[in-house]
Structure formats: C-alpha cells, structure tokens
C-alpha cells in the first residue's frame, strides 16, 4: 500500500515537473528569440500568464464532440507517455511505469496526441485546419523515418527495446550512445528538428500562412489545454533523447534526496542544451515548403540512420 501511495505521488510529481519545465523552456525560448531579434522580450513566465488567461476565458466554443475531446486527448496522451519514460534512472521518487514501457510502444503512443488534434481540427470544418493537418501528417511521415531508423539501430546494437535498460547500459559501461553510435544520434537529432516544429519546419502552424493551422478554431480553455499538453510533450521528447543518447540522468546506486536533486539538475542541463539545437537552427532559417521538408528528412538524416544500423550490425 505504501508502495502504491509512493507511485501515485510520483506520478503527480512527474506531471507537475514535466508541465513546469516544458512551459518554462517555452518562455526562455521566447525571451532568447527576442534578444536575438534585438528586442527586450516578454518575461520568462509569460507562458504561464498566457495559459492562466486562456483558462480564465469566460466563454469557450467547441465544434462538436471531437472538437471538445481533442485537447483532452492531447493531454491524456502526454501524461500517459510521461508515465512510460524514466525521468531519473532508478530513482525512488519517479518510479512511474518506466519498467514496463518499451520503445516501440512509445513510438505508437507519441502519435496519439497528434491524432487527437487531427480529428478535432477536422471536425471544426476550417479549411486552414484541414491543410494544417495534412501538412502535419506529411511532415510526420518525413521525420519518423530517420527517428525510427535511429531507434532500430540502438535496439539492434544492444538487443533490447526497453528505455530503462538502454539507460542502464550507458550507466554501467560509462559510454554514452552519442559515442557508441554517433550516426544514430545524428539521425535522431535531425528528426528532432521536425518534431519540435521550429523554423524551418513550422509548416504546420505557419502563422502568417495558415492562421495557426490545426488550432485555428480552438480558443480559450481548449487552446490552454493544448498548450499544456504541448509543453509536456516537449519535455517528454527531450527526456527520451537524453535517456537514449546522452547517458540519462540519475544514479540507480544512490537513492538519497541529494542524488535525486543532482539527477534533476543534470537532466535539466542536458535537456536544455538539447532543446537549443532546434531553436538555434530555427533562428537562422526561413520556412520550408512541405515537399522540401520531406525531401530534407528523406535525404541525409535517413542515410545517417541507415549508416547507424550498419554500424550497429557490424
């Protein structure tokens, strides 16, 4: 019973952590972008204010059942996936379900939120939403291929599909997967550019072009819930990358409160540095067209993924 209580506590704590970190990173990116553009920029907590404002809107309109359910799906998918990735390797406070999830399952679940958004956007009947959804699915077809190739390379190399075991291997041998399979890491890094949807791959939202795409008919609480789900998803992707390639965070041999805090600090540093890659890439790039984006992903990133698999096999 005590174990169950700890697990529930850990789940709540994980959700709060993922939400806070994701929103704060978004705020930091807005501030940094402003500084790069020689502006003063909004405060770092601006995203929280936006969310609070959206949640305190007095009227909210939904266009039917799926329009009502889409934000709920997104946040359900986000929290579910969050439960299946290890936040800290072998830590007492964030046990969650990390032992029972594997990479193939995560690949499926991570698409679930986008699917919910696609259905909700479809029901709103806005033509911009429909174009945005078709673009998003096309882009997903693009970046999923190098991403899956990179993950398959890891699975072949270490003969396991469990995120937990992959992290544990890095902890035991002391060699991060960046070094043991650099090609797979590069392929996954290129895929992350598309995943985070910063420029040049912001073809889904495309504010000036598509009027924010799939979310164009969502306002108020619906938009706020989608924002929270997106923030948690950003945290999920970053944490997954850190645990797969960058040696993970947390020390399974030592389970004191200081070890937890140290692990969290390391996790935050690693995820932040990783998050800066798509952001930096976005600052210096204009927007691609859909077919250019797909051609980009099916070019060098896919080739790197195949080289990564060959590297793993031989």
């Amino acid at each position, binding site marked *: 019973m005590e174990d169950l209580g700890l697990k529930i506590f850990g789940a709540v704590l994980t959700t709060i952590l993922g939400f806070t970190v994701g929103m704060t990173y978004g705020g930091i990116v*807005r501030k940094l972008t402003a500084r790069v553009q020689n*502006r003063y920029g909004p405060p770092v907590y601006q995203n929280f204010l936006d969310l609070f*404002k959206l949640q*305190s809107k007095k*009227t*909210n*309109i939904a266009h039917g059942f799926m329009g009502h359910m889409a934000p709920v799906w997104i946040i359900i998918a986000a929290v579910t996936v969050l439960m299946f990735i290890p936040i800290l390797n072998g830590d007492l406070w964030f046990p969650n379900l990390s032992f029972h999830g594997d990479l193939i399952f995560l690949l499926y679940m991570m698409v679930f939120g986008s699917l919910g958004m696609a259905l909700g956007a479809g029901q709103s009947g806005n033509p911009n939403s429909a174009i945005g959804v078709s673009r998003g699915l096309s882009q997903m077809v693009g970046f999923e291929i190098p991403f899956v190739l990179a993950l398959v390379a890891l699975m072949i190399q270490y003969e396991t599909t469990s995120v937990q075991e992959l992290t544990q291997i890095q902890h035991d041998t002391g060699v991060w997967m960046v070094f043991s399979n650099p090609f797979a890491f590069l392929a996954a890094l290129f895929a992350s550019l598309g995943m985070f949807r910063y420029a040049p791959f912001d073809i889904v939202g495309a504010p000036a072009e598509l*009027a924010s795409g799939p979310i164009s008919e969502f*306002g108020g609480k619906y*938009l706020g819930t989608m924002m929270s789900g997106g923030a948690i998803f950003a945290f999920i992707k970053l944490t997954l990358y850190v645990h797969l390639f960058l040696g993970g965070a947390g020390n399974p041999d030592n389970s004191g409160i200081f070890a937890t805090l140290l692990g969290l600090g390391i996790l935050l540093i690693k995820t932040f540095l990783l998050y800066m890659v798509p952001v930096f890439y976005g600052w210096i790039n204009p927007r691609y067209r859909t077919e250019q984006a797909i051609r980009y992903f099916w070019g060098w990133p896919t080739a790197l993924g195949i080289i990564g698999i060959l590297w793993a096999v031989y």
Partner: protein
Amino acid sequence: MENDKNSQKIVDYIQNFARKHSIFVLAYGTGCGAIEIPATMTSRYDAERFGIRGAATPRQADVLLITGYLSTKTLKRVIRVYEQMQEPKYVMGFGSCTINGGMYYDSYNTINGLDQYLPVDVYINGCMPRPEAVISGFVKLQELIQQGKAENGKKYRENLEHYRTNQKKIIKNWRMPDYNW
C-alpha cells in the same frame, strides 16, 4: 469582474493580472493603419514585452484592433469576426477614421464612429497614430482590465438590439448567421 460590493476579490485580481499581461491581438487591417502594427511589434518598439502578441484567428484573440477606416463592406466582416471572439474581448479603435470618420467623414461608403456598431474600449487618436501612441493605448487598456472596467463583451450581449439596429441601417442585405455564444 466586479462583485456586489464593487471591489475586486483576490481571484478576480489574479485573473485580471493575467488578462492584462497576456493580450492576443487580432489586427484587422482595414485601412492604412495596418502599416503601424509591424513597427509596434518588431524590435524598435517591441510590444511583446507587455505580453502583447499577435493572434492568428478570432477564436484565440482578446483584442480586435480596427486599424483605420471601415467601409460598409468590411463592417460586415468585422461584426462577424467580433462575434466569433471569446469573452472577455476588447475592441480598440485605431486612428481618427474610427472615431469620427476622419478624412472620409463625408464618404458615401465608410462609417463614422465605430462605437455605434461595436462597443469600443479604447480609441487611439491620430492620423496615423505612431507606435508610441499604440503602445500607450494598450497600456490604457491594461489599466481598464486591471480595474475590471473592460466589460464590453457583456455590454454588447446585453445591448444587442441597439447594436443590431445600427448595424442593419448600414448593411442592407443582412444575411448573417445568428449570434452564437
């Protein structure tokens, strides 16, 4: 946002604080005023430091910014856009044309005085108002929001008959869907 005793409770205060510092603007670029919006948003005047940012669609927006003269044809679209916005919602009239018609005061095809057709929270004077004036208008709106006085969405709903009568005087072929909150 005002309760019975006409004073703000703590929740109202926090909500108004968030509303005040997070203003999503839908710039309805009807007239020449739209050219001042990029200058207000970009690096020289940087409206984003007040939490003001552009919204792409009426559903996400808080402020409807009417930048310049309104012809009778665009008035129809503006009304439609305004009714799609979610409360609390605010309207800012931008430039002399929205106040009294400006240089188009005797035109057969433009309206004089936006507040006959939509409830306006803040007018910005000038032809054209410079970005400083736009920002000062936004600061005025922020003050109104913080004091809980920006309640024009409710005002529009309650006085719908009045506004509809005025609107139908201008728009002869009224073929619009019903107001759907």
